């Protein structure tokens, strides 16, 4: 599994695939204060990325891979996404 729950943190590691989106969503829905750790992530599938964009959990680490560090994680860490605020319901 490239996604796992360890204590209060959800760890995304290696090549995260579309299958990882559902457990990630489940864990974040269960507890919105959980931290998502990207330190060991090498790729985030778009399905995983959009869960992070929608629920905006606290993010730890910025990815092991330069593409993630340069282009993907910055948009998860800055809070002002351009289009529309997520609705927490």
């Amino acid at each position, binding site marked *: 599994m490239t996604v796992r*729950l360890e204590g209060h943190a959800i760890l995304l590691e290696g090549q995260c*695939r*579309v*299958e990882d*989106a*559902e*457990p*990630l*969503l*489940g*864990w*974040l*829905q*269960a*507890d*919105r204060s959980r931290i998502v750790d990207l330190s060991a992530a090498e*790729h*985030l*599938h*778009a*399905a995983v*990325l*959009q*869960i992070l*964009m*929608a*629920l905006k959990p606290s993010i730890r680490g910025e990815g092991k891979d330069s*593409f993630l560090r*340069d*282009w*993907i994680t*910055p*948009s998860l860490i800055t809070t002002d*996404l*351009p*289009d*529309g*605020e*997520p*609705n*927490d*319901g």
Partner: protein
Amino acid sequence: MDDLLQHFIVEARELVQQATDSLLALERDPAGSAHLDSAFRAVHTLKGSVGLFDFAPMGLALHAAEDLLGSLRDGRGAMGGEAIDSLLECIGQSERWVDAIERTGHLPAGAAEEGYRIARVLRAQLDEGSADAAPTVPAADLAWIEELKAACPDPAALRSGDTPLVAIRYTPRADCFFAGDDPVALLRSVPDLIAVRLSNRDPWPPAGEIDPFACNLQVEALSGAALDAVKAVFRFVPDQVTLQEAARGAPGDAHGMRQDSAAAGPSPDPAGGASARMLRVDAARIDRLADLVGEMVVAKNALAHLAAQGADGMDGKSLVQGLQASQAVIDRLVAEMHGAIMDVRMMPMRDIFRRFPRAVREIAGPLGKTIDFSMEGEDVEADKSVVEGLFEPLLHVLRNAIGHGAEPENLRQEAGKPAGARVVLRARRDGDRVLVEVEDDGRGIDPGAIRRVARERGLASGDGIDGMSDEEVIGLIFAPGFSTASEVTELSGRGVGMDAVRSSIERLGGQIGVRSRLGRGTTIRLSLPLTIVMTKVMAVRVGGELYGLPLDGIVETAFVPSARILPVQEAEAFVLRDRTLPLVRLASLLEIPRAPDKGAAVKVVVMAVGDELVGIAVDGFAERMDVLMRPMDGILAGMPGVMGTTLLGDGSVLMILDVPELIG
């Protein structure tokens, strides 16, 4: 949204459907004047309704379509495939506009250019192809490119180099994950990225309603590489991406931009998304519900009469008899009302099936395959949520049948099959379930190839695979992470697919199966419940595990200071708002080791057990959720204290406890 607009949306969808059905029928039978009439009437009515609102570009396009259909009807033009294509394009765009109107109340940006373009293409047909039917370059909205430049982390990169920049706006379709697309992976393969902006296409739904398999991203990026190199990255998704050359330089000097894209603007799911829709209900069903409510009023009056008699000193025995009779009537009525309301939620498969003929045409077209597509059982009904939840998985199964199943014509003829591949979508009722099948007469699944791939990907041990029968091996197509890469086409099969279909079906409480004979064809069979009854539960944590408690038994939750818990002989009690309630530790009920009390307060769920309130101590509260509860069956059926189980999002099993039985 005002009423008029809501009615417009419902009506527009029906007219779009009527026009599409008629145009497709016309394509099969060009001489059928009834189809032409029907298409003309649908477009004419739709144009009229559009005129009531401020949707001028849509009116412009539809007006041109109406004129074209009118001239065909009068025999002034020739009905060719090209005319049908451009009419269907206009109808398809109208449908997307209706979706946008439903979401936002108005047409999307860029609709003016698009409406004008469609109208020109249609009018060109009207003039017998004399005019240039090529898409015109719309004066695109360029503000986003400026914003991207402003967001660039390294402004120097904007200036270095002589070639223009390429601006990319990629709006993946909502169902793109089913096709195996990973927009992030595509973005990763764009050469020489200079700026990236990630956003959401539509506002995010509330956290509890997020569908992890529906893509809602919009990706905008700038690249310093050549246009052709960027184009190559997006070659499989040309309908979802707009590429534009943009001048280098700081934000502000945006001259010399040039659009390069066959598709103007992103196009969401061509067959319509699965958004919440208004429910059209047969009037007879509403009448039945109204009758039942009427009977309920009578029953209520009888109760009032009985109460008055009781007050006047009626003897106890007669009063009890009267109450029992009244209760029996109300019981029956409540059961019937429940049945009636479930009926209202039933909808026929037709409501989603009717969108498939066009989808099949759109899938088969680019592949150059002829598909003989037919449907059976459109009248079979199931709960709204089941029917609507089937659309995307079925679309993907059909895509596979056409993309992988159907062989090219020459291979089919060599094998002695008819040139066009037969694909049948079939629904039927089976007891309290609905069976939906997609059957093709294509090449079938090769168990040998599956074995090889399963071994390569380590889905099962070598011995395990050898020990499996062919049927079991074929079932591996539903395993997570499985995809037969050797079957990659431009259309489907790049990555996940059937496992996502399987999870969608399982979330509806259904099962999926496959039957295939090499060279003869494949049948995917879905079995679904007719109705889904959701149970509201609250999850609680005990000893590191989650358990569910049915919400209807829960009165409240409370934090009780440890000091206020009083030992009463063997048991415990606490005082809540001047009432003494017994306290039961859930850990003891479940006979698991009890964690020592942490902190100064105990978390307590107050539940009604019979006539009494009881406090149930737990280690933690988790979220509330609507779950699909499966009753315990098999050897677990007799397990006391457990009402049922449900699958959580992460694949783990949540046991739903029957607390009164546990306390017993």
